[in-house]
C-alpha cells in the first residue's frame, strides 16, 4: 500500500482531521447539552421568574400540539418534493447546457443567480410580485390567458412554498452538477458514441454513475437545510391557512420566537434532531454507498 510507505502516515490523517473534528464537537456538544437542560426546565423568556425542573412536560406539550403530526408530514412532503424537483431538473439543466451553444456562459450565469437571493427577499418577491392573486405577475399571465387567477398561498400553500424553495435551491444543484460534469471522461463518451450508444444509454451507463456522488452530496446538504426551513413560511403564510403549511421548524420557531418559551422550543428542537436522524438513516441506506 502506497500510503504506508511514508513515515507516520497512520497518525497524519488523524492529525489533519482533528481540528475539524474537535471544533465541530465542541460546537455541537455545548449547545446540545444546554438545549437538553432547557428542555426539562420551565424557561419562558417572558416569565423568567417561573423556573424549576418540569421533567418531560415540555416534550409532552410539544408532542400533544394538534399541529405536531401534520407538521411532520408537511416537513417530509416539503423535503421530498424540493429534493426531487431540484435534483431532477438540476440534472436535466446541467446536461442540457453542458455542451457548447451560443450564449452558454450567459445562460449559466442566469441559472445560478437565484441562489444569491436572500431567503427573506425570495419569500417577499414570490408572495407579492409573483403569486398575489390580484396584482401578481402570475395572476396577470392567467388573466391574459383568459383563466381565473389562482390564489396560490390560500389554495396551494404548501405547494407555493415548495416552488419558492425549489427556485432557490435549483441553482445550487445545477452548479454542483455542472462542475461534476466537467470531469466527465470525454474519450469514454466519444468511444461510446462510436459504438452507436443512444443518448439514454450514455445517460444511464456513463453520466449517472459518474454523477452519483454529486447527487448524494446535493441530496444530503439539501436535506439538512430543508429540514430547518422556516423564514419563507413565516414571511408568506405564517404556517396557514390552519396548519396547511406548518412544518416542524416553523412550529419550533413559533415556540421560540413568538411565545418565547425556550423550554418547549428546546424540546421541539431535540425532537427535530431525532427526526433528522431518522431521515438521515434512511438516506444513508439509499445513497450512502455512493460516498465510497
Amino acid at each position, binding site marked *: 500500500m502506497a500510503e504506508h510507505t511514508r513515515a507516520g502516515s497512520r497518525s497524519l490523517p488523524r492529525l489533519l482531521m482533528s481540528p475539524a473534528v474537535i471544533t465541530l464537537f465542541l460546537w455541537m456538544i455545548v449547545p446540545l447539552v444546554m438545549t437538553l437542560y432547557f428542555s426539562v426546565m420551565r424557561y419562558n423568556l417572558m416569565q423568567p421568574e417561573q423556573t424549576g425542573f418540569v421533567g418531560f412536560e415540555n416534550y409532552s406539550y410539544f408532542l400533544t400540539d394538534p399541529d405536531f403530526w401534520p407538521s411532520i408530514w408537511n416537513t417530509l412532503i416539503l423535503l421530498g418534493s424540493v429534493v426531487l424537483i431540484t435534483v431532477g431538473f438540476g440534472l436535466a439543466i446541467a446536461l442540457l447546457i453542458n455542451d457548447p451553444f451560443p450564449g452558454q456562459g450567459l445562460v449559466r450565469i442566469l441559472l445560478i443567480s437565484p441562489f444569491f437571493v436572500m431567503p427573506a427577499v425570495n419569500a417577499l418577491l414570490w408572495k407579492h410580485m409573483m403569486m398575489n392573486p390580484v396584482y401578481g405577475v402570475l395572476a396577470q399571465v392567467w388573466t391574459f390567458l383568459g383563466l381565473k387567477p389562482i390564489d396560490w398561498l390560500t389554495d396551494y400553500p404548501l405547494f407555493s412554498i415548495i416552488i419558492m424553495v425549489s427556485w432557490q435551491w435549483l441553482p445550487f444543484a445545477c452548479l454542483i452538477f455542472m462542475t461534476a460534469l466537467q470531469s466527465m471522461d470525454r474519450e469514454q463518451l466519444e468511444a461510446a458514441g462510436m459504438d452507436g450508444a443512444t443518448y439514454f444509454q450514455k445517460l444511464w451507463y456513463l453520466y449517472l454513475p459518474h454523477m452519483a456522488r454529486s447527487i448524494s452530496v446535493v441530496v444530503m446538504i439539501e436535506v439538512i437545510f430543508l429540514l430547518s426551513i422556516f423564514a419563507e413560511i413565516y414571511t408568506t403564510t405564517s404556517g*396557514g391557512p390552519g396548519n396547511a403549511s406548518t412544518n416542524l421548524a416553523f412550529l419550533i420557531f413559533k415556540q421560540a420566537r*413568538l411565545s418565547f418559551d425556550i423550554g418547549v422550543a428546546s424540546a421541539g428542537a431535540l425532537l427535530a434532531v431525532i427526526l433528522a436522524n431518522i431521515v438521515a438513516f434512511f438516506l444513508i441506506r439509499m445513497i450512502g454507498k455512493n460516498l465510497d
Partner: protein
Amino acid sequence: MKLNRMLAAIAGSIVLCATATTQAATELVIATVNNGHMIEMQKLSKHFEQANPDIKLKWVTLEEGVLRQRVTTDIATKGGQFDIMTIGMYETPIWGKKGWLKELKFDDSYKVDDLLPAMRDGLSADSKLYAAPFYGESSMLMYRADLVKESGMEMPNNPTWEHVAQVAAKIHNPDKGVYGICLRGKPGWGDNMAFLSTLVNTYGGQWFNMEWKPQLESQPWKDAISFYVDLLTKYGPPGSANNSFNEILALYNEGKCGMWVDATIAASFISDPKQSKVADKVAFAQAPTAKTPKGANWLWAWALAIPESSAKAAEAQKFIQWATSQDYVNLVGKEVGWGNVPTGTRQSTYDNPDFKAAAKFADAELAAIKSANPADSTLEKSPYTGVQFAAIPEFQAIGVAVGQQMSSALAGKTTVEESLKTGQEAADREMRKAGYYK
C-alpha cells in the same frame, strides 16, 4: 426655539459635567421599527446630535416582527445591546410590571399632561410611565366616497357593521376590479387578530372571562367570525387569507378596495397622491359597530423605552424627551411638512391649525383615539387591559394560534365552528401551561 434648544443643551451638558459621567461621547444604540415616522426621526436626529455633541446615536432599524423578537430576547436575557427600544402598547405594561424598564420622569418642559390620556394610560403600569409615545393610532373606516355616492348609499359618521355590509354589496364589482371591502386575514396576533378582536369586542365578546377562561366558543365570537367570513367571502378580494396592512394598502392605492377598516395611519398613505391613485376620493368614518361601541376600534402606540440594564439611562432619557416632545412635532412640521408629523400622541398636535389644514383625517383620528379605552373595552368585565390584545405574556402565542384558525375558516378549509373550537383548545392549552388555572 433654536435659542431654547441651545440653552437646554448647555444646561444639559452642565448637569452631565456635574455628575462627572462625561467621557468623550456617549454612544446610544437605538432599536427601532422601520415605519415611516421612525425613518424621519432618524433623519432629523442630526438636530439632536448637534445640540448634544456629547451624545452619538447608533440606529438599528428592523421590520416589526424581527424587531420584537430581537428586543424581547435581549431584554429578557439582560443582553444589554440597546439603550433605547421601540416597543408597543402590548409590551410596555408587561415589561414595566416586571421591572425590566426604567420609569420615565420628565421635567416640566415636556408637558406630560399634553399626552392623550388613552396613550398615557396604555403605556403605564401601576400609574408609572414606562415608555413615551412616539406615534399612536386607532382604527377607522376608510372608504371611497365616489363609489358610495354612485351606488346611492350614504356613509354615516358612526356606521354599523350591518350598514357596511349593505354598502359592500352595492359597490362590489369584481369585473371592474373593485371589491366591496378589504380586511385583514393574514394570521398573526398583530395581523388578523388585531382587527378581529375589535370585531368581537363590538359584538359583545371578550378574550377571557374573569376566571381567565378563553371565551372563543361563546356566541359573540361565533356571530362575529361568521359575519367576517361571510362578508369577506362575498365582497372581499381573492387572497384575503394572506392580506395584512401592506397587502391591502397596495390594493387600496390601486383603487381595488371600496372600503377598508384598519389603522388610522393608513389615512396618510391613501390620501397621498404620490402613491395612491384614489387620493382625492377617500373619506373617513369611525370604525363600524354592532352590539356595543365598546372596543370597536383599537388603540396602539409605538413608544420609546429604556431597558433597566442600560448604563446610559440619563442620556437615553434626554433623547426620548427630544423625540417625543411637542418641539419635535413642530420640527417635522417645518422641515418635512405638516401632513407627515407623528400623530396620535399629543393634544397640542390636533390643536395646531397647520396640522388640521394639512391632514383631512385629523378629526376622525382624534375621535377614534379618544373613544378607545384599553382598561374597559369589552361589554362584559374582563381581567385584562388592551383593546385588540390582552396584555399578558401568553397572548402572543394564543393570538398566533387562533389567528391561524381564523385564516383557515376564511380560506374555507374549516367551518367557523370548527375553527373556533380548535382555537379555544389552543388558547386553553396555553393558559393551562402558564398556570392561570388547573
